[in-house]
Every structure is written in C-alpha cells, then in structure tokens.
C-alpha cells in the first residue's frame, strides 16, 4: 500500500489548525460567519487560477493574497451597525454567486478542471511538498497568534462587555481571529476541500462541548478530536479506498454521535 509521509503531515496540521479555531468560533457564537469562510475561500481559489496563469506565482498563493482580507468586509459592515448575521448573509450570497460565475468562466477558458475539483473535494493525496510548506507556515502562524491568547479569545466570547471594560482590546482580537480563520480556510482548501472545511470548523468544538466540564476541556477535546479524526480518516481512506476528506468527515461525525451517547 502506497503511503506518503506528507499526507500524514498535511492532515495532522489541518486537524490541529481547525481544532484550535473551532472552540473560539463556538464561544463567540460565530458559527454562521465561520461557515461562510469556505465560500469566500472558494472564490479566492477560483480567482487564483487565471491570475497564476497570467502573472505567475502559484494559484494557492494568489488565493491567500486576495482571499484572506475578504471577511473584513463583514467586520466593516458590523462597525457600520449591520448585524453580524445579516452582513454574513450578504457576504455568502456575494461570494458564492461570484465563485460559481467565475468557475464557469475558468472552466470554459482554461484547462483547469481537475484542479478546481480538488478545491471542492479536497485531497491530501494530490498534495505536493510545496503544499506542505505552505500549510506548515500557516499553522505555525495560527498557533503563534492564537495559543498564547486562547483564554482571552474564548472568555471574550462569554462576556464581551466585561472583557472590554477590563482593558481587552477586543477589535484587535476580532481582526486577528478573522484573518487567521480566513487564511486557514484558504490554505487548507486543497487538503481538506471546501465541503469538509465546514465540518472541521464546526464539529470539533460541538463535540467537545458535549463532554467538557471547563473551557480548558473544550479546547483540549476539540484539538484532540480534530487531529484524531483527521489521522484515522486518512488511514481508513487509504486502506478502504475511500475519498480521504469524506472519511475524515465521517469519522468526526461518528465521534460526535459517540459523544452524545456517552453523555447520556
């Protein structure tokens, strides 16, 4: 059986990154906004293809440059008094329809069909070492900018006014978190795919909430469940000849169901 170490590295990093992001999303009740990220990430990925062909650089790099700041639109709308969920709805509508329009254009004008599919389905087995380097840099940045501030990121979600009145610079935390969420969603798109990203952003913390008795537990269980299901999903996928991101998603879902049963 063929096995490449870079598959394991990629899928573990994906589990780690989304395992860290997920509890913050949940504590701050940003599930809807977070689930909008893959939509703009897909748009950025599609834009990256013609840009890469025209100007060089890899399409993934273009996607990161263009896509990472996009959710700041929601943030700016919120500052103008538009509610987060309303801003997000507009954002999803805009990015989703634009990406479909652009996909059609790209598919009819460039011979890139297979590469587009890899963004939507995701497949670590198609990865190259340069993918590994890229997501390693992203994961390191994410861990460096989130782990030391994990408590505040979560406690802010529990009571924002209290955090701000105690001297926490909330908007700085918001912007950093939003950019990291966006960056990771784009960076991991080829590894785990647009569809599984929704699952990885939402499910690890939801699972952790079921079995946690403290904020610390939520973070630890979220990371553990995301990393474990990523690795188990990869191994199952390879040995049973299943699509890997589908099998990661299924393993996580089974974990979630087990957690519900366990809690009873």
């Amino acid at each position, binding site marked *: 059986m063929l096995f490449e170490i870079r598959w394991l590295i990629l899928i573990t990093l994906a589990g780690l990154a989304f395992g860290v992001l997920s509890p913050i999303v949940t504590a701050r009740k940003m599930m809807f906004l977070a689930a909008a990220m893959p939509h703009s990430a897909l748009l950025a990925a599609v834009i990256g293809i013609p840009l890469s062909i025209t100007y060089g650089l890899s399409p993934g790099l273009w996607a990161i440059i263009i896509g990472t700041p996009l959710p700041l639109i929601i943030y700016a709308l919120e500052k103008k008094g538009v509610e987060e969920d309303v801003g997000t709805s507009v954002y999803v509508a805009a990015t989703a329809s634009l990406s479909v329009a652009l996909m059609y254009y790209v598919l009819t004008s460039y011979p890139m069909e297979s590469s587009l599919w890899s963004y939507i389905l995701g497949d670590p087995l198609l990865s190259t070492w340069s993918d590994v380097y890229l997501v390693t840099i992203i994961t390191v940045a994410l861990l460096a900018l989130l782990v030391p501030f994990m*408590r505040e990121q979560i406690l802010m979600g529990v009571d924002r006014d209290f955090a701000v009145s*105690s001297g926490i610079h909330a908007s700085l935390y918001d912007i950093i978190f939003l950019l990291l969420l966006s960056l990771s969603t784009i960076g991991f798109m080829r590894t785990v795919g647009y569809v599984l990203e929704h699952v990885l952003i939402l499910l690890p913390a939801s699972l952790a909430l079921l079995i946690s008795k403290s904020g610390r*537990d939520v973070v630890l269980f979220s990371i553990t469940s995301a990393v474990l299901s990523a690795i188990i999903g990869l191994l199952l996928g390879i040995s049973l000849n299943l699509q890997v991101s589908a099998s990661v998603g299924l393993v996580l879902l089974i974990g979630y169901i087990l957690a519900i049963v366990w809690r009873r």
Partner: protein
Amino acid sequence: MKLVIRTENVTVRLGNEDIISDLNLDLEGPGLVVVIGPNGAGKTTLFQTLVGLVKPHKGKVRINNVDVTGNPKLAGKHIGYMPQLSQVNRSFPITGREFVESSILFRMKPPRLRVPGWVSRKTEEIVRELGALEFMDKPISELSGGQIQRLMIARTVVPDTPILLLDEPTSAIDPRGKLDVIKFIEKLSRNKLVLLTTHDPTVFKEKAKLLIVFWRGVKAIGKPVEVLKPEILREIYGEMVIPVKECVHLVDTHAV
C-alpha cells in the same frame, strides 16, 4: 483614594434616538448609589457610557478627574463593571472559577498563560463570601441565573477597583440569597463608590446614600426616603406604583 464620577452635558444617541440627553452627574464616594427606572430607561446605556463602552454623541465622562470618554481601557483602571446577566453567553461551559479569574487575567499583561496563585486564593475568598464556593468549579452552562450573578459580582469585585457599577446584580437571585448579597454590596460601599441598578429599590432604602430615578436622564435624585414617593415615581412608572404603608413598591413584571 478618589471616588468621583462626573459627566458633563453627556448626550448618548443610539440609532436616531437620544437615549440620554444632556446629563450632568456629580457623584462622590464612598457610598451606595441606587439607580431605578423602567425597562428602556437607559440605565444600562448610562453604565456603558460611564465605563467607556458607549461613546457619547457629545459631552465628557470624567472618572476621578480623568477624561475617560469612550475609553474603556482607561475607565477600567478605576471602575469594575458588572453587565446585565443577559450579556453572558451561558451555553459555553467555562467553569465558575475560570469565569471569575478572567477578571484578573484580563488585567494582566499578555501572554496570559497562567493564573497566579494569589488570584486563585483571592477568588476563593470572595466567592466564599458570596456563597458561591460549592458551585464555582461547575461549568456555567449548568448553573442557574442567580448562581451566575453571584459569580458575576465576585468577578467584578476581585480586581479591587475603587468604583463599581453593577447592572441589576440581584435580579435573578432568590429572596433569601438577595439579602445576603445586598449585605455584601453594602459592606463594599463603605470604602468604594458603588452604583447599581434595580427594579426593587425598597431593599436598599436604608443602605443607599443616594437614589436616582432615571428615564433618559436624571428625573429625581436624593436620599431614598425623599425620592421614593408616589408622586415622583408615578411620573415615570405610571400606574405601576403602589404605595404600601409609608413606603412605595414598584410592580415589577419583567425583571431580566
């Protein structure tokens, strides 16, 4: 230690409406100041303005002679703020301990990786005084509103700021527990300036040095016995005011 809250011509506009107009407050501690007013009066907005969370459309907020207008970081050095219970996301299972200790954690320099030992000791001491020790290690998602309010009070008190603003601190606490908590707050007000909002002013009658009737601004201010009079209260509460003996009760159907 100075204990002064002063507002100069403060007007707060939310949407297109002036929620507070042209407010000039001058409060000096120590002591307990009780703010009453019906839902929508702007009590919460007032507190949020005093701690810098809401920036007034015009006017200045000075705390201990420092201009803190719209600057929560600066205001927070002097003020401990307890938001209304409804502000807390109760579905996320942090423990009561994590919840209370966050008050010091937020005030420390980053990275805030560890809670120092003295914080835990101080937290336990105050939580015990508030009768919350037995549930402080449970997740807040499993606690009742009244239990969380006790922890919220502890959280506000632990950093030991000279001024405290407590927004409906006892609204969900049972009548017996309420008396203990009020006693605790009264003790604090002996050397701090404590402002609180309530829909139940009679229990504070003897303890408060000032009572403010609030509706988009100060409608009446004075010693509780002077202000708690039917003719003053009826003006803003309408027919909900029922005189009982020499004292006045507000019929409160929807305390949050």
